[in-house]
């Protein structure tokens, strides 16, 4: 399957800078910030991709990926936070299988 370019160089640089600097800041920060930083990066990537990705990926970006649990939830209800994150991961997995055609269904 031909793949579409979904990031400009500026956008890719922005994400690259975020990821590298997050690796450094995480050395000094509370461990609970780890997932938060990764989800922030995922959210920004999704924002960049929206409007350029295939219709199916678009559905993932505007559907399940918009349902990322709020960071505040982690401190008040860690179990619910995990459950909601699992639901997003499940949706991502489903999309990967459909997109790449892997796995027996």
């Amino acid at each position, binding site marked *: 399957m031909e793949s579409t370019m979904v990031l400009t160089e500026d956008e890719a640089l922005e994400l690259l800078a975020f990821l590298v600097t997050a690796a450094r800041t995480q050395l000094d920060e509370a461990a609970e910030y780890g997932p938060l930083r990764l989800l922030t990066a995922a959210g920004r990537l999704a924002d960049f991709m929206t409007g350029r990705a295939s219709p199916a990926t678009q559905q993932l970006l505007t559907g399940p990926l918009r349902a990322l649990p709020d960071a505040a939830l982690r401190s*008040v209800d860690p179990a619910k936070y995990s459950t909601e994150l699992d639901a997003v991961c499940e949706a991502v997995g489903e999309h990967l299988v459909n997109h790449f055609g892997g796995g027996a269904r």
Partner: protein
Amino acid sequence: MSNAVLEAIRTRRMVRALTDAPVPREQVEQILESARWAPSAGNRRLHRFVAIQDPVTLRLLRMVSPGMFQRPRAVIAICIDGQRARSFGMSPTARGLYVDVGTAAQTMLLAAHSIGLGAGVVTSFSRAAVSVVLNLPTGFSPEMFICLGFPAARQPPAIRPRTPVTWQILSHWERFP
């Protein structure tokens, strides 16, 4: 009797969503002026502030600041002047220097609140990258950003404490039991 200072302390919040409206330079100057009156150990004034309003610089700062969720229209970077600290015989990493970062920050947050601006602090950024972006002199260390703008109508949910907080919970009289 109402007390404007206590009321400002009670009603100030970390503002994480800001509008696109620009912050007038005069307001940034008012906040910087307030920081001039913040407590400073020994009145040594070992901190320097960098005010940023240029959109490109703001964008670059956000790129290297994983903790900056908001899109501020102005930022004040609180920096420790390490060389000046050494001139007083202090280590650039002495605890007192960080206390004064806090007193300057809280003073600016209250000042921003009092003039109708939303403000939030960010400490999660790469000091190395920020030093390059702001062209900081050798020995300067950026320690905190005060992100400024006009508060958006909708704010993300507040981070609630794990247990209710009262002053009684936080405080003890005379000594711990």
